[in-house]
């Protein structure tokens, strides 16, 4: 079925954007309160992209970073990462990657790569290889072993990105499985996650 982008922006889908952004914020807070070793700050973007598609996912990612940027302008620089994650994850959902284990593995690998390269571009070109976070130590270690900057940053992002993607995606996926069918049916991208077998006439 061919549909324009406009079709993605129902009122229901629009209302998911603020929820997605807030979930990123809450996820981040919770991971700090529970003293978890990774920041679970992408669940909102991933969840929203899963059930409302690439464009809504993209916007949730973008807005999230702009909101963070009000307090920490560096986050604005990294918008491109969230935007890519939201967009790509939304397309995987559209292509029904998330309904079987192979699709999920492929999606996670590709998401990791997308995240790593987009993050590396920002890190290297805007911030000279630095993010101001703990992962800089990994990059520093790579540099110390004589690797080039670009190579080091990409490697760091592939490692930390893989962990982040798997955890953020895993939690999002687990929770989306728990969303009632009644709600999924109202969303353009909800169909793959509906558990009940019914023919949907709309």
């Amino acid at each position, binding site marked *: 079925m061919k549909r324009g982008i406009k079709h993605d922006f129902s009122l229901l889908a629009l209302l998911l954007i603020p929820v997605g952004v807030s979930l990123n914020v809450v996820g981040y807070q919770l991971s700090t309160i529970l003293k978890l070793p990774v920041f679970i700050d992408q669940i909102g973007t991933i969840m929203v992209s899963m059930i409302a598609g690439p464009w809504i996912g993209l916007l949730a990612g973008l807005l999230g970073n702009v909101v963070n940027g009000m307090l920490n302008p560096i986050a604005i620089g990294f918008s491109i990462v969230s935007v890519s994650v939201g967009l790509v994850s939304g397309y995987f959902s559209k292509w029904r990657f998330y309904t079987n284990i192979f699709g999920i593995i492929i999606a996670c690998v590709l998401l990791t790569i997308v995240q790593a390269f987009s993050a590396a571009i920002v890190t290297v070109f805007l911030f000279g290889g630095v993010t101001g976070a703990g992962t800089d130590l990994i990059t520093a270690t790579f540099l110390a072993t004589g690797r080039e900057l670009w190579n080091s940053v990409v490697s760091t992002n592939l490692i930390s990105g893989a962990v982040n993607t798997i955890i953020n995606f895993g939690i999002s996926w687990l929770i989306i*499985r*728990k969303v*009632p*069918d*009644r*709600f999924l049916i109202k969303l353009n991208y909800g169909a793959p996650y509906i*558990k009940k077998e019914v023919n949907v006439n709309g």
Partner: protein
Amino acid sequence: MSYLSLKNVSYSYANGYEAVQNMNLDFDLGESAAIIGQNGAGKTTAVKLMNRLLIPTEGEVFVNNLSTKKATTAEISKMIGYVFQNPDDQIFQDTIYKEIAYGLKNQKLESAVMKNKVEAAAEICGLKESLNEHPYNLPYSKRKFITIAAVLATDPNVIILDEPTAGQDRESIERLGKLISHLANQNKTVITITHDMEFVVREFKRVIVLANKQKRRDASPREIFWDKELLKLSDLKQPFICQLADTLGYKGILTIEELLERDKNETYYN
């Protein structure tokens, strides 16, 4: 000492707002009570002090002789179950069965034992037919029973219900009544916050009135609902039958049956 006891407890929130002032309350096992009072009277703060969601800024709360200052909320929750006002704050599973069973998971029970416990809790909450449904397929009022069942399944000695009657139809309110007497028969204590005065009259022998951060009175429904001074001060109203009795000129009446009995031979109203 009583099983649950608040000793000279005061509580102020971090922003300085004092919500509970010098409160003393005691509950023995098997002794249920209703807590009534206007919004802002301190009802929810008082019960949150009981299961250590809040720690008193002054005074102490004891559960089974253990001060809540020396325990974690998770430990206290084994003795005191607290059903929040809004069920949506607790529900996160995709079937009612899993939701009720969640609290039991840590107890390392055999699956048959677990199943029995879940089903027993579901039965008394009227959920037995819908155990495989998604919690959100039930309306808000019924979702409340899911969280009640989840707490019942863990078998605490004290159960706190925060406004269980809100938005319930007649059948559900009757079910709540049965549930409370069932628990009392098992020597459990049920503490219920409610705005439904008819419910209080029917189901409780002890009523605690809170107003303006303080305990105003702790007595039987009859004493409370005919203490007009107290009701006025606490911004509460008599149940409808008390109002009717009052209009007809009878004092101290609490139920329709009593009223019928009293005016058997009178013909005040034609």
